């Protein structure tokens, strides 16, 4: 792996991890009856930006290196399902994340404090953050499995 490809892999993981952590922080804030709006906005925007950066760096690594260099190793090894299931499902589940994060950002940025405290809106927004966090976690853990199958 070239140094630049290594860097994109590292950045993909780091950005993705930080993005999921930011979304988790937004989720925990949304669970309060009166969310701290400033912190919520910061974490939501950070989450979206980090997910977008993870998308870009992951796209580079996946399209230029993974298919030709990593996938054949996994398919020839003891855990071919790591690609057939985990990687395939992971790469497509990831595509949902930016849109979930974007809607979260739209609502927390454009919505007033009273809207964000209104349980009618706060609860589904928390559920949305919860789904985004859960998907992010599944994606991250799938990445660990895929990497573990590279032997």
């Amino acid at each position: 792996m070239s140094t630049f490809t290594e860097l994109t892999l590292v950045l993909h993981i780091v950005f993705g991890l930080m993005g999921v952590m930011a979304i988790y922080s937004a989720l925990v804030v949304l669970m309060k009856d009166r969310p701290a709006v400033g912190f919520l906005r910061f974490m939501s925007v950070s989450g979206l930006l980090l997910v977008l950066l993870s998308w870009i760096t992951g796209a580079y690594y996946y399209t230029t290196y993974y298919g030709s260099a990593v996938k054949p190793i996994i398919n020839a090894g003891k855990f071919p399902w790591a690609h057939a299931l985990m990687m395939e499902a992971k790469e497509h589940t990831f595509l949902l994340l930016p849109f979930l994060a974007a809607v979260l950002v739209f609502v927390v940025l454009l919505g007033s404090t009273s809207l964000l405290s209104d349980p009618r809106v706060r609860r589904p927004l928390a559920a949305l953050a919860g789904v985004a966090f859960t998907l992010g976690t599944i994606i991250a853990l799938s990445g660990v499995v895929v990497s573990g199958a590279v032997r």
Partner: protein
Amino acid sequence: MIDKHFRTLYAFAISASVTVLFIAIITIWADLYAPLKDWLKAMFTHHWIGKSVLSAALFLILGGVIGLLVSKVDENKIATALWWLVGCSIIATLAIWGFYLIEAF
């Protein structure tokens, strides 16, 4: 209460619901129908980049169109749209994982 931003929030929540379902559909369809995957690769250099670009375009365009067409959005409509997005995301995720689970084993 009607707020000037409510239409935007509602529009993009609905757009995101359609987009996540689109992602699941095109993922499964492209894997089952080779010409679609080939077309995505030819147009966008890689099928996954094609799905990314089409999804982003759908989200933005549909969100804009719905935002222009919709009127009188209140908190209840926003809440409903957000719950729809939660549901559609779960369905899309289960569809993707279920499909690849069957394919892999």
